[in-house]
């Protein structure tokens, strides 16, 4: 694999003014800001492909201070997006991390400049497979190059360059967002003061790859997928995508959480139907999760982003020695896992912490007791929030950040 080039000078550097991208002609017109990376300075992907032009859609909250030292980059998960603390433009729901991002909250927008970009390959404004291929004028579909977590981070680094931010105060994210955090800390150590990888791993496990493959096969088995060219055919593989979402959603919860929420309770009926309707509340819930997901997510994006997670293996990229990914790092790490998370279990975080210790990194590591499974990082978990708040305050003190 090609390694990222952290060199920010030369042709990588972009001019200062953001422009509204003209690339994305097929997508709905999402609110928010856009960076257009011109074809003249393409992204060099790990696959070797040069991709350009590329649009990066992003949201910001709060104000960047004079010396640009208070920026926090939030990295979103597989099906997340840049609308961290905004009403979602499609679903109308609150932002996905409004529990901790906002004025007076943990990621206090009165103190910090919060930045979040839709990942490369995504479907909320950043270039992805549903966008027009400038070479043909038609949607990329499967002609979009396979991207990696490293490529996502590289696109974000262009955005951070563009905003004139030399060093991020903090990079934080859960799940796939946590993978990006680790990639940032490894590829751009001098640009990350503090890193908070939450409910994540340094590599995608065989079990997780297996779950992703189930999801991808569900999409590709839908006749409306049309070999990825469903936009041209005027169809939508919404059934396959919904099944993919349903299967994945189970992995985000825990048996305890499912049992507490639904048990074996029946859905709007007093007895079993002796048929295949959604007899059980848990079935009805999953069907709902599947059907609402297809309204906001692109099936091909799901293929590309799950693939990027599968390919992520920071240890293999460093000769099988994970500590090598962090040699000499001065970044302050706070690694967080949750007891009931079986998608990214604590053992993965512990292996990461051991590697960080071996690299003599400054690291905090907490395992939070929760029965809410992987999704706990998105939910109201007071212990997690108190730890995160303490870590950020400590880091801000060391960074010399002054708040009014």
């Amino acid at each position, binding site marked *: 694999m090609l390694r990222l080039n952290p060199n920010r000078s030369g042709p990588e550097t972009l001019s200062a003014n953001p422009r509204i991208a003209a690339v994305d002609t097929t997508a709905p017109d999402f609110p928010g800001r856009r960076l257009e990376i011109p074809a003249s300075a393409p992204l060099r992907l790990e696959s070797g492909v040069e991709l350009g032009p590329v649009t990066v859609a992003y949201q910001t909250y709060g104000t960047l201070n004079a010396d640009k030292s208070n920026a926090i980059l939030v990295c979103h998960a597989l099906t997340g997006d840049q609308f961290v603390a905004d009403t979602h433009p499609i679903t109308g729901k609150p932002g996905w991390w409004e529990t901790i991002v906002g004025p007076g909250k943990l990621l206090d927008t009165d103190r910090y400049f919060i930045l979040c970009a839709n990942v490369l390959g995504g479907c909320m404004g950043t270039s992805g497979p549903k966008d027009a291929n400038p070479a043909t004028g038609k949607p990329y579909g499967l002609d979009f190059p396979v991207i990696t977590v490293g490529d996502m981070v590289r696109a974000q680094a262009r955005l951070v360059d563009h905003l004139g931010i030399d060093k991020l105060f903090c990079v934080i994210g859960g799940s796939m967002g946590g993978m990006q955090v680790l990639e940032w800390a490894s590829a751009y150590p001098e640009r990350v003061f503090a890193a908070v990888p939450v409910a994540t791993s340094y590599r995608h496990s065989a079990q997780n790859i297996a779950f992703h493959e189930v999801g991808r096969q569900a999409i590709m088995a839908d006749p409306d997928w049309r070999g990825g060219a469903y936009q041209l055919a005027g169809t939508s593989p919404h059934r396959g995508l919904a099944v993919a979402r349903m299967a994945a959603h189970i992995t985000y919860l825990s048996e305890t959480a499912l049992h507490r929420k639904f048990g074996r309770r029946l859905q709007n009926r007093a007895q079993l139907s002796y048929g295949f309707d959604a007899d059980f509340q848990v079935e009805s819930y999953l069907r709902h999760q599947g059907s609402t997901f297809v309204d906001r997510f692109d099936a091909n994006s799901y293929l590309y982003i799950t693939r990027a997670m599968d390919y992520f293996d920071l240890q293999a990229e460093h000769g099988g020695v994970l500590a090598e990914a962090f040699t000499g790092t*001065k970044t302050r790490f706070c690694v967080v896992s949750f007891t009931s998370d079986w998608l990214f279990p604590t053992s993965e975080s512990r292996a990461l912490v*051991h590697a960080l210790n071996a690299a*003599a990194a400054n690291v*905090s*590591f*907490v395992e939070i007791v929760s029965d809410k499974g992987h999704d706990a990082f998105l939910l109201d978990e007071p212990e997690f929030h108190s730890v995160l708040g*303490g*870590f950020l305050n*400590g880091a801000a*003190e060391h960074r010399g950040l002054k708040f009014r």
Partner: protein
Amino acid sequence: MSDPGPVPAAAQGRPRASIRVDLRAIADMIEPGTRVLDIGCGDGALLDWLAHEKGVDARGIEISQQGVNACVAQGLSVVQGDADTDLKDYPTGGFDYAILSQTLQATWDPKAVLGELVRIARRAIVSFPNFGVWHVRLKLLTTGRMPVTDSLSAQWYETPNIHLCTIDDFVGLCGALGVTIESATVLDAAGRPKGLKAPGRLANLLGEQGLFVLTRRA
């Protein structure tokens, strides 16, 4: 290796709560601005004091999740981990001091732990309750039962202290490991230095705790 970095002025100005006398005895041995690993750091009292009063790059390991969460929530760099299993990951000579305060007797393999301490740090500071102190000896002699004292307050069947030793035992282990004793003091029940020469017969008889500074034999 990361440098400890400057202590923020705001932090220096913040008044710290006083710390336990025995922790203070340890803190007094630490040079300012050094790198310290406190193994079994509990609620982080010593780390917090060292970080703010001596500008130390202070890190901790704590086995209880409650302790770890309390430490991180106050901005300390602490990981959940176990002295018996998690010291092997740390690079050789990565720290100036490794502190093991009142924890050695609760480890599964004190010999291996002691070896790791002097490997990962230039100096290891180890304190432990002295099972050779006169009143412990007297209790065993007169009652014929396992002694229960103020500092060793649990019954034999529920104590976490599975590898108790005397000061002389500890000195013997250091010899067997080829570890140099740079300095040794004994503390009274309150954790105050007793001013006795250690190692020595009187120290082993009168000291409630041993406090040792160890280095690898050059």
